[in-house]
């Protein structure tokens, strides 16, 4: 791995946003670096600002302190070099079919047009096993299928980095596990770089290669860990992470696992 040239650098980033009557600090001086081909997971309980952090990387909000750089250039606005996959099922354009959704992304961003766009779309729709549904409208698909389209759309754009904001959180447990496997299989095929946000420790260990642990209120980096590759190591890592996250709140939490 090329450790001298990180793809994405998050450098001492503090994020604040205003609600109606509060100024909320979502993350405080968070730093990490993502390298090409990484599966980097932001893990933390709700309120640790992991989704806000991902939105900042997406360019939807500017940090009040620190800087986010993609390939050395500061991130200032959203762009197709950082494709987002959201948790919400309504992220597909309902007035377009599956294929049109992918093609539209390619054409609207100016990546490809016409036949080339259609071919690229079909290739990635096939990768997520939805060729049979290419001409269906999103409302006829199940939740898992919609997320697969969103992933296909993100991958078809061949972005520098794929940003996934709890993409499987709204799915049922069985579908979620299958989607995690499929995501890993897709990654094996193309080795894209992905920044993945989740609040589930097992999901982080399964999907991620490197895990950034964030503490809540405000989000601060607690640890940056390597994921496990054997089931036993995964179990050990899981209880270790659990201990680190909840140690101060429930000292005996680890015993109950």
């Amino acid at each position: 791995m090329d450790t001298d040239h990180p793809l994405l650098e998050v450098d001492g980033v503090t994020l604040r946003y205003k609600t109606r009557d509060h100024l909320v600090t979502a993350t405080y001086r968070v730093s990490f670096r993502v390298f090409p081909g990484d599966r980097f997971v932001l893990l933390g309980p709700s309120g640790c600002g992991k989704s806000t952090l991902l939105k900042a990387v997406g360019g939807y909000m500017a940090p009040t302190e620190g800087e986010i750089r993609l390939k050395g250039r500061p991130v200032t606005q959203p762009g197709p070099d950082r494709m987002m996959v959201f948790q919400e099922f309504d992220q597909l354009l309902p007035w377009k079919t599956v294929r049109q959704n992918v093609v539209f992304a390619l054409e609207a961003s100016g990546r490809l047009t016409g036949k080339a766009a259609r071919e690229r779309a079909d290739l990635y729709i096939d990768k997520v096993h939805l060729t049979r549904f290419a001409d269906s409208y999103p409302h006829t698909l199940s939740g898992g299928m919609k997320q697969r389209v969103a992933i296909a759309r993100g991958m078809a754009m061949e972005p520098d980095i794929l940003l996934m904001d709890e993409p499987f959180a709204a799915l049922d447990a069985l579908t979620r596990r299958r989607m995690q496997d499929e995501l890993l299989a897709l990654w094996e095929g193309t080795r894209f770089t992905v920044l993945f946000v989740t609040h589930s420790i097992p999901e982080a260990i399964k999907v991620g290669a490197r895990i950034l642990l964030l503490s809540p209120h405000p989000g601060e980096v607690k640890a940056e860990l390597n994921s496990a590759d054997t089931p036993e190591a995964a179990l050990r890592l899981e209880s270790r992470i659990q201990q680190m996250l909840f140690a101060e709140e429930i000292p005996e939490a680890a015993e109950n696992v």
Partner: protein
Amino acid sequence: MSSAPLAAPIPVPPAAAPPAPTAPARPPVAARPEIVHELGPARSGAAAPVVEKPLSLFERLYNQSWLRKLVILAVLAGIWEAYGRYLDNDLLFPTFSATVEAFFRGIADGTLPARAWSSLKVLLMGYAAGVALASLLTGLAIATRVGTDVLETLTAMFNPLPAIALLPLALIWFGLGNGSLIFVLVHSVTWAIALNTHSGFLSVSRTLTMVGRNYGLSGPRLIGKILIPAAFPAILTGLKVGWAFAWRTLIAAELVFGVSSGSGGLGWFIFENKNMLDIPNVFAGLLTVILIGLVVENLIFQTLETRTVRRWGMQA
């Protein structure tokens, strides 16, 4: 659950042996055989139960809403005819057949189509102008905060004001002619459309907007390619409501005055025939008004709706 065995030894008197912990009685695993079914008869063979079978002809016909409505219409026409014959007074309440006859006579000699066309012409002009004004206002409302305030204030003020109430003023400003009609039409259309369109834009999901910006869309391209289609259900509702207002307002306005350059619209046709006590013709005029309303609402807008909003599963 009973107390779980503790890790630490419990201090017990040395004389008595500690009693065995009483776990809840649970049958041994072997006592409950596992059950695995072979899926057989339901999948194949002659004994298979019905999985799918066509409904009977009557059921299928009954499921057609147009057919049910057609039957209702026929029943209503029957009641009308019967009452008309019972009353036997063409000046008060002509029969259904007399009305239909007057209607076809009107169609055949070309008066009804001509009157309807002159009404529709004015209507389309007013409607188009109203839509244009509404888009302008909504555009401003989306672009700027002042625009939002302007739109909200104006719609709050003018939406409750029936367009027909402006007719006397319009007559003074624009004289007896199409100008006045178009003025009241614009008034009746604009607010309904602007109100619906604006609320449609406001309710576009944040995720979709973010998706659009993710593609690098912004400004007019974001509005044209993401916001307008996403708000389309509300826009369509606005267009429908605006059409309904406009059609009613136009006929009412024409009843007050409708002559411009010799030929008036449907409202005027109704008014004229009432003055001549040709009541079947009045009914025929009303029937035409209803028919045009039905055609536009049930054919044009419904088709538009099935082709777009329903197909996309975006019903508002």
